[in-house]
């Protein structure tokens, strides 16, 4: 098994992406080419450089802990592929049909 294809398969599993064999074969070499092009990052001396995690400059602040109107349940569930009462419906995870 080609290692690039295997990397793609392993990463896809982490990302909860089900990819077909054909997709893995196609994405593997592309993925390798992208990483190769980006390896220039490794050549740079980043000693002493501060990691920039965001660009906002704002302090994240919490508002007062007061009750406020929020999205009504029907609106929040309006796009649900499956609704069960006031909940999202999903396949069973324990027992039953798996």
């Amino acid at each position: 098994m080609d290692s690039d294809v295997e990397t793609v398969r392993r990463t896809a599993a982490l990302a909860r992406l089900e990819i077909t064999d054909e997709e893995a074969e196609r994405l593997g070499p592309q993925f390798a080419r992208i990483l190769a092009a980006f390896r220039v990052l490794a050549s740079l001396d980043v000693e002493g450089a501060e990691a920039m995690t965001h660009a906002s400059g704002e302090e994240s602040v919490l508002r007062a802990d007061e009750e406020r109107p929020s999205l009504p349940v029907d609106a929040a569930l309006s796009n649900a592929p499956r609704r069960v009462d006031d909940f999202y419906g999903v396949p069973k995870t324990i027992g039953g049909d798996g």
Partner: protein
Amino acid sequence: MSADAATLAAAVARGERGARSVVAEALERIEAGDDAVRAFYRVDRDAALARAEALDARVAAGEDVGPLAGVPVALKGNMCLEGSEAHCGSRVLAGYRPPYTATFVRRLLDAGAVVVGMTNMDEFAMGSSGENSAYGVARNPWDPERTPGGSSAGSAAAVAAGFVPLALGSDTGGSVRQPASFCGISGFKPTYGRVSRYGLIAYGSSLDQVAPLARSVRDLELLFEAISGRDPLDSTCIDDDPVRPLEGEGLAGKRVGVPREYLSDDLDAGVRARVDAALETLGQLGAEVVPVSLPHTEHAVPAYYVVATAEASSNLARYDGVRYGLRAPGDGSLQGMIAATRDAGFGDEVKRRILLGTYVLSSGYYDAWYGRAQRVRGLIARDFARAFEEVDFVAGPTSPTPAFRLGELIEDPVAMYLSDVLTVPVSLAGLPAVSVPCGTTDVALPVGLQLVGRRLADAELLAAARTYQEATEHHLARPQGVPA
């Protein structure tokens, strides 16, 4: 539209022209021209006309309906307007009707604007050509064989084709500036945090900004003032008032730095010639044009694609078939349903970026890739900070080439990524930047001049761009068949 937004809004506000007539004209132009351009995936004809009539009734009753009175606006497909399908160009969000309205859309409506429809885009804003869409590929009004740019492909094409005077796009790594450049219009990415992201469907949250497109800088200023300002619903939104346009001249006595790294040999000759001429014009308008250096420019594309894809892999984890959009049953288990939904719902480029983002965040690779890219991002921001100790603005081309042909780069992701080399550094640094037309190449393709400002100096930057624009006529050029 033949008139600009400021003129239209003034005429509507004074009762000289009905909002209905303005909106009907936009709808007629879309109907006549959009089969060829494919800017829109949805046109809300009845809702737009009804809203225009309501505005006219308010004007007749003596009400002030706002600075964008009756102005038709197009929204990119990643923007939430309650009840209006926003699928982000993705199968995974097919049929998604947001149950709420974005803050910036609410402000547009409060300012009197009329939303006429939603525009085509690269899936989840991932692309530089508009081709990564599950719904339709927009075309460049200057040459239908070429891309209007991306990812705000339809929004830029809609303005360039004269369908609407204003459109909103989003700019994560250049997705408004590059299409503005390719389509011969003006596009502005504000300082990160100037416009609330509440209701903008996320791609890379530390980079995404809502960004206006128009034919003139004056219209960009009008639209920007309407949508900017603090919003308690977005904790990264800057705690400041809406940004008012600075009146008067914006270039005399200013220093403009031209990064030598932006004028490499890879630049298209036509782009180089138009940008050189534009820099000369800046000098004639009283600016002092000097060379500067942004030494980490070549590292910006990889740093950007590591940071943006890492954030995307996290943001797009929400598309799991549970709460909205597509659900594919898979093998019937919960995990199987999630994986099958994501496989069926996402296109190739989105999968590539989720994979890349997941990889650079995964155990054993995090420090070497994501951690390092964040530090490189810091170096790039420092490059700009140092340049801005010497100059007021940085100037150069928006894109190394004019609009490329549809299909030309789509099979080569690396080449497509590298085409973003002149826009992503600004995005990483969170700075404001505007692209304005500076002429056309020998084969009649528009070229954009990018001006970059200091953080929070949005108004000064727009004033400088307006000064350049009003001294030139490049923004008045129209594609064949589009009235001036």
